[in-house]
């Protein structure tokens, strides 16, 4: 940012706006068929955080919607011990945690863009983390790769309820989202497992996801 023609510069003091303790979660999924799973991951994590007295927010990327079948779409959560100052900075600028609901999204999508150094990637896959790592952009600063076979633990749920900011009458976290959220908890302890179990429809799936998560340290 500069003052331009009169030569006066107003450099934006980015460090002044650092939000210590803020964790950003970005979830990538595929439109229509798997959108509920992404929405459920962010809703469950934000809800679990709220149970712990934390500040949180969850939302879908409105610009990606209305979605079309299988197009890449995103959902977000922010969790903090303090009031969230960046509430209406619409997209997560520097995610701490990226979750991929469908494994092939790791190819050809900028899933690690802006990732905070040492950040975490959670992928729903049956593959070993070493195999997933081969598809990731080098130099992304990824610190931890976690894989979980969410599809082997739960069945994906499909509903038209819960779109456009409305509540989801079918409930939250009955499908892949439960083990995927469990994997997030295992990988980075964003919230406590009991808090997560308390807000999802399938707490056992969340716990099994937590237990079966395989971690690969990269940094």
């Amino acid at each position, binding site marked *: *940012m500069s003052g*331009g*023609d009169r030569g006066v510069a*107003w450099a*934006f003091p980015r460090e002044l706006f650092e939000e210590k303790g803020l964790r950003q979660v970005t979830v990538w999924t595929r439109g229509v068929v798997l959108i509920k799973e992404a929405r459920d991951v962010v809703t469950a994590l934000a809800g679990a955080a709220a149970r712990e007295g934390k500040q949180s927010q969850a939302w879908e990327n409105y*610009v990606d919607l209305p979605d079309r079948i299988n197009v890449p779409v995103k959902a977000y959560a922010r969790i903090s011990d303090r009031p969230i100052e960046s509430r*209406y900075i*619409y997209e997560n600028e520097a995610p701490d945690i990226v979750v991929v609901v469908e494994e092939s999204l790791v190819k050809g999508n900028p899933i690690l863009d802006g990732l905070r150094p040492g950040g975490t990637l959670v992928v729903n896959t049956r593959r070993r983390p070493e195999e997933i790592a081969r598809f990731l952009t080098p130099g992304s600063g990824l610190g931890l790769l976690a894989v979980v076979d969410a599809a082997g633990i739960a069945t994906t749920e499909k509903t038209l309820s819960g779109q*456009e900011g*409305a509540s989801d009458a079918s409930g939250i976290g009955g499908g892949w989202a439960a083990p995927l959220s469990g994997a997030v908890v295992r990988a980075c302890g964003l919230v406590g497992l009991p808090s997560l179990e308390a807000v999802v429809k399938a707490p056992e799936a969340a716990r099994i996801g937590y237990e079966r998560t395989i971690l690969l340290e990269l940094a």
Partner: protein
Amino acid sequence: MGKKALLTGVVAVAHAVKMADVDVIASYPIRPYTGVMSELARMIADGELDAEMIRAEGEHSQLSIAYGASAAGARTFVGSSGVGVTYAYEVYSPISGARLPVQMMIADRTLDPPGDFGSEHTDALCCRDQGWLMGWAETPQEALDMCLVYYRAGEDPQVSLPQYACQDGYFVSHITGEVAIPDPAQVREFLPPFRPVRVLDPAKPIAVGPQIEPSMGPPLQYQRYLAMQESRRVLTEAYEEFAGIFGRRYAPLVEAFLADDAEVLLVTSGAHTATARNVVQKLRGLGEKIGLLKLRSIRPFPDRELAAACDGAKVVGVLDNDAAFGISGGGGVLYTEVCTALQGGGLGDRELLGFVAGLGGEVISREEFYWMAQVMLDRARRGPVAASGKRESGGDAGLMARENWKKTFWLPFDMEAGEGAA
């Protein structure tokens, strides 16, 4: 006691509508309003809400249905966004002219072209002079509370006017926030059932919306004017009683933040206030005398409260999240309104600046608010521009530089061009 939940703005409003025990809902889908409609439909289907829900074939019909239902004595709710708001334009004045307290939730959306789902206040502000109360909620909690306060104030016999309860599309409507859902008994205490002064009744026929002679025009319009004037007092009292019952206290018309000794003030409305407040707070921490004023009410416009809050400020900047092409001053709607409210403060003792930002639903970034603040602080340091065009202080006083006269800025373009610096 109530309970807390993470709710989006649309769901928060649906809860308010349910607790307000609305009788008739007329709907027509358009993003981002759609979520309210589907949530209310779910509530009715699940037996949580006993209301008549009528799916119109367009927004003009939607408002016409509410017009009739309200005239028959029903508490009514409608909502829309963007071009849906403007499609119903014809019906707004008849509803307020008949003094019917219909409530319309507007989740902002940019007007076409191009087709854009993004939020912009232009849709609602197009309707600002139709005799409806109007204000913006910054959070889902404020959206819920505003719905209740507006029914209460709008149905007051001293007001009897419809209300636009606005929220920024997707920022407020689609992001969850923590919401205290009040106890229904508290809501019943605050908002008793709608008791219309007169209703459509075959036993006692009346005419609503008839043709009149021109001689009947002045008194009819004057009554609507007086009702809008009176709504300042009624709104203030409603917010006061709201605080007593629910424990959440709102400045009814203008909300001040770090404004007491501020030399520079930014006036905002709606969701982007949250980002602006963050920037103002950081600059305060650096010792800058900057504050913020959030307009909770746009109609009625809080002239006196705003003027009082701006007393002592050297520079007042106004954020406009609306496009008003060719408008006086070259800023947006709120800039012209603030200029009028502060009457002539643009020259001499106080400088008034306008900032148009966030059009099309673009995020108004912290960088942009920081830049607005620096432009205002810079003007405050350089001193006021005299009517002659000369500054009273500053090394380049006497130069009628273009920057001295530039009052309104369009972001990000003027920021990138360095227009504010001098």
